[in-house]
């Protein structure tokens, strides 16, 4: 095994651990809605939410990096360039994440000065991590880009997938620089902030996971490179063709000119197209193999990725993307419903799929199967889709009661939040979050014991 692949395993371990932190802080945040006095005066809702959404970003980023460190040596036929730097930075990355989490929990916030933004909390959604930590992420991303590009140079070769990946890493890093400034004008601040958030999540990350899924498909189903690369280019053309101007759906209400209502509405309405393409691709490939594979969990998670991305990001996103609807849905639990489903479908399922591919090699398993992965697959997906539905109910209530009828004032907000259907949705979300958490526990159990439960695997192998 290459050193790069050993590093990949470490990244996956850290990613799965942070997936757990995300789940627990999500549970806490969900519980505040049911019992607002919970941890009052100790840990405000904001800190639980910050930990929830930042660990989301970091565990996915670590999952992506682990996937690339895993596939890169095989793709280019050599050890990853500068792997020693990446190995050191892995521990720096983990230590930094831990320090940021402790500082956020213990100090929570500082005074209104630059020092607080550098050391404690930047207070911008998704990029709350203090600036020193954000600088660290830049260094890690630059070294990661060097690992990929340097390996291609050293190997004197590249492939279509690696070329797309290399080009994608440049905007990925440049856009992250938006994490630093504190622009006083909220309209301008949010304008650039969306360049980071949207053009990461709905553009560069989509391309990144597209590359990872392409590499995974070749390993999982033996799909030909020609087919995979053709699809990747189509994906890139459609994702960026719709997603770059789809950015406009965040510019409806932040003080930007009204032409964004038309441009953002139109292009973001087309954003599901590439995701539908991904479903067609996945179903075609899996069908061509008659769903036969030596790694069923990887295949099922990949199918969940394709469908989850299309339904969660595509359909759920389309539901709120037209300005006529977004005027009422924006900033409600309806958005939260879309956010959960989209991140899960677009990214999380893909990372879990690659994790199972990695485990098959590291544990040297001819066949990966058993019953544990099915329980975790069912509980995680049912929990997540259930949460999505529950949040949608609460979101509808807000859109109607708070926005359309109430007029969006403080009193309207409160009457929406106190509405019985809203509360039912929040309780259902919490209960389904527990189902999701149970799925996570089983996933960890399966990952830890896979290949070490010899009889079960042998039985499954015999059944095949």
């Amino acid at each position: 095994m290459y050193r790069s692949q050993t590093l990949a395993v470490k990244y996956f371990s850290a990613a799965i651990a942070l997936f757990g932190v995300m789940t627990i802080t999500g549970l806490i945040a969900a519980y505040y809605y049911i019992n607002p006095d919970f941890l009052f005066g100790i840990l405000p809702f904001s800190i639980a939410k910050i930990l929830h959404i930042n660990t989301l970003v970091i565990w996915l980023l670590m999952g992506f990096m682990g996937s690339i460190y895993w596939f890169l040596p095989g793709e280019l036929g050599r050890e990853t360039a500068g792997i020693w730097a990446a190995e050191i930075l892995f521990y720096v990355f983990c230590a930094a994440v831990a320090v940021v989490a402790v500082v956020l929990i213990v100090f929570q916030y500082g005074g209104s000065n630059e020092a607080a933004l550098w050391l404690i909390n930047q207070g911008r959604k998704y990029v709350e991590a203090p600036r020193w930590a954000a600088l660290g992420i830049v260094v890690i991303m630059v070294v990661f880009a060097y690992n990929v590009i340097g390996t291609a140079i050293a190997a004197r070769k590249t492939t279509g997938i690696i070329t797309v990946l290399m080009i994608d890493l440049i905007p990925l890093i440049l856009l992250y620089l938006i994490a630093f400034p504190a622009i006083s004008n909220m309209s301008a601040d949010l304008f650039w902030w969306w360049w980071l958030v949207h053009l990461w999540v709905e553009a560069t990350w989509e391309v990144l996971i597209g590359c990872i899924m392409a590499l995974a498909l070749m390993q999982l189903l033996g799909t030909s490179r020609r087919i995979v690369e053709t699809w990747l280019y189509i994906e890139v053309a459609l994702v960026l063709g719709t997603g770059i101007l789809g950015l406009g759906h965040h510019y409806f209400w932040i003080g930007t000119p009204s032409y964004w209502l038309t441009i953002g509405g139109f292009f973001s309405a087309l954003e599901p197209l590439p995701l539908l393409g991904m479903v067609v691709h996945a179903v075609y490939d899996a069908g061509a193999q008659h769903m036969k594979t030596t790694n069923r969990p990887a295949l099922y998670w990949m199918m969940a990725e394709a469908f989850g991305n299309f339904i969660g990001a595509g359909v759920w996103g389309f539901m709120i993307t037209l300005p006529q609807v977004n005027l009422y849905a924006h900033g409600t639990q309806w958005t939260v419903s879309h956010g959960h489903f989209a991140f899960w479908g677009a990214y999380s399922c893909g990372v879990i799929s690659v994790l199972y591919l990695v485990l098959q090699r590291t544990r040297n398993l001819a066949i990966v199967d058993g019953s544990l992965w099915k329980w975790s697959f069912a509980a995680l997906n049912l929990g997540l889709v259930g949460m999505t539905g529950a949040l949608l109910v609460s979101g509808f209530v807000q859109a109607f009661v708070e926005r359309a009828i109430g007029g969006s004032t403080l009193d309207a907000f409160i009457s929406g939040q106190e509405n019985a259907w809203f509360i039912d949705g929040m309780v259902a979300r919490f209960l389904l979050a527990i189902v999701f958490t149970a799925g996570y526990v089983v996933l960890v159990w399966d990952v830890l014991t896979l290949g070490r439960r010899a009889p079960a695997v042998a039985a499954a192998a015999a059944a095949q």
Partner: protein
Amino acid sequence: MDFDDPAFWRAGAISTIAVMSIVLIMLTIDSLSAISPGGSHVPTYTVINQHIDYKFDSNRGFDVPVIGGAEPLFGKALDETAAAALIDHGKMVIQSRACIDCHTFFGNGAYYAPDLTKAWLDPAWGGWQAVTGADTREGAMVKFLMDPEQYRTWTRTMPNLGVTEPEARALVGYLKWMSAVDTNGFPPNFNQIEKRQ
């Protein structure tokens, strides 16, 4: 044309990205001028010296901010430099306390607490004046922000974030300025229900 050739689709991807990126850059240049203070959609910071309202514009089909006569914040008009300093300070308070992780600004943020886009104009402040014993709306807001646990809103209480009086005044100035931003009618129907009654 060979549709099976990956190179065909690669060329398509590159040209699509190039065209879309150029359009985005052009629109960004235009938008940045519209959203800079004093631009077509975002007022100068000295707007905090004036009365601000939010009224239905029949031509545009939604509510728009209406800037009225003199109404200095805390009874004292600020020049351009002082107003900018107050707004800078206000934004620093917003970031250092991570307000956006409970509240929303222009609908962006977290959904645990109310949207602050038009918070300055919220009719509820009338009642808060009585509760806090303040003479003015801005006075009530300062008292609330400095000790939110004393003035519990409802079952969800805003925690005490150690906001000092200068910080609270800067925050109030920020919220007043923000309420004058033209948000294409967001949030909808704000305050209209009460006005119709």
